[in-house]
């Protein structure tokens, strides 16, 4: 069966750390970083990229449009 594998890239300087993407992700790929960006926000980062299916839910719901999604069929 074809499997989808995704990868997400964050523009961490634009991220405001709202955490909406964390709740939107069905496979729990995203978590908030303990480090902060130059504005002092705990930005979002991918902690479990292997589970990413590239569903784009996180990118669709991101208010600041910081997430870019890539996807391949393997």
């Amino acid at each position, binding site marked *: 069966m074809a499997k989808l594998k995704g990868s997400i890239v964050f523009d961490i300087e634009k991220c405001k*750390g*709202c*955490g909406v993407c*964390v*709740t939107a992700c069905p496979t729990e790929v995203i978590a908030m970083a303990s480090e902060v960006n130059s504005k002092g926000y705990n930005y979002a980062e991918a902690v479990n990229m292997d589970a990413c299916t590239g569903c*784009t839910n996180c990118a669709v719901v*991101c208010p600041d449009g*910081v997430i870019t999604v*890539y996807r391949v069929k*393997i």
Partner: protein
Amino acid sequence: MADNISVKDIIKPENLVHKRSSVMTDNIMHYCPGCGHGTTHQILAEVIEEMGIQQETIGITPVGCSVLMYNYLDIDMQEAAHGRAPALATAIKRLLPEKYVFTYQGDGDLAAIGTAETIHSCNRGENILIIFINNGIYGMTGGQMAPTTLEGMKSSTTPYGRDVKLMGNPLKITDIVATLPGTYYVTRQSVHKPGNVRKTKKAIRKAFEYQKHNKGTCFIEVVSNCPSGWKMTPVESNKWMEENMFPFYPLGDFKVPEE
């Protein structure tokens, strides 16, 4: 062998499925973290990009949190006096009928000071799109009570909750405009979950298509959150919105044209 494909192999231009719309500028938005304005801007920009109407679209910005919207969308935009966006949109659409004209207004702008302009524009059936962001509060000025504030909801001017005997009932302006014969498409959506964002995007797309065929006023209400005004985290505010806003402002279409 396929299972151990590396992240580097996935991140290639040909595998791109979602990125920030090119209609959005690179400016960092001033909205609070988790604000629905940002999401609505993104989908609006995506629709404009997908339809290829960046050069033909004119937006009217309101007074409120989204007053600086012209810094974020790379299209022609005009700032209106408080609440007067539908009047300005009427003028622009009548002078330039081939352009796509939309207004983007909050509840303090559209449902309070601009009620007359909103209702009369909808009643005249002006061929414009009105996007109405309803978060039940005056966000920009510090979270005062708006006409759309729910009964019992706390705000900085109603610290004990809105008392309907003293302050009147919350205004469902979308229900009102749906009864007017000039409106063609009236719907209420939200942008707090991926599914809802996709639905709202479809609604905006449909509204622009109707405008192309001169059908009449399209009115899209987006029930949104205000984490700062409601004094919650963004995720909590989305949950609160689901539990408290949606029972009073149910999502769905109010007026759908018969195709």
